[in-house]
């Protein structure tokens, strides 16, 4: 079972490149059981959206 730290590494990595099958498998089985890392995954997506919006702010 992946640790939460390693799950956050893979979540961050998924923003940079498509994950390999084994990485996806390990991450998804962790996320299935870990709501905190699901929050981290969702918040990382929000962060990307916020960065894209940031430039439009006066």
């Amino acid at each position, binding site marked *: 079972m992946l640790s939460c*730290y390693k799950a956050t590494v893979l*979540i*961050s990595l998924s923003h940079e490149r498509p994950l390999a099958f084994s990485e996806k498998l390990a991450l998804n089985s962790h996320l299935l059981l870990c709501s905190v890392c699901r*929050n981290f995954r*969702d*918040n990382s997506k929000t*962060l990307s*959206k*916020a960065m894209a919006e940031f430039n439009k*702010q006066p």
Partner: protein
Amino acid sequence: MSAAAHCLTDNAYLADLRRQMLKFALLQLRDSAAAEDAVQDALIGAMKNADRFAGKAAFKSWVFAILKHKIIDGIRGKSRTIAVADLQTDPDGPEDFSFLFDEAEHWKAEHAPSKWRNPEQQMQNGQFWVVFEVCLNKLPAAQARCFMMREFIGLDSAEICKELALTTTNLHVQLHRARLSLQKCLDGNWFKEK
């Protein structure tokens, strides 16, 4: 006079644009003199060719494209000293974020990321962006630079590694740390307050 040339005679528009450019440059260069220089150079470059641009939106994206190049030139000039120094004080591995995780590398309860409610709605709030900018400014310089180049300018990993003379692994470490730090900061200073 073209629409873009007209932009350059609109003082309020120009002041606003200049402020945005400065904010953008300062976050990446971390040096107000260097940021002022980059913005000035980009604006002068823009004025020379203002006639070629049809509207304000096209003009703005073009000015930012010029600024981006000025910033990359500025970073390239000092990246080796700064980025390497930051990387050296930043050992790899979870020990750097040990305050977030326990010995088994699981989240400590008090630092676990919360579920962010209605983020789109939060982004409508002007105060959110004040907090957001404070959090960006709190990032160590190397992390902020990598994160801004990746998520704000939208360069891909290969380009950033080339510009900053980083390995892909180093870049991914920096981006992971930036995401952890920014989430922690926004979580504590905005989302948990709501």
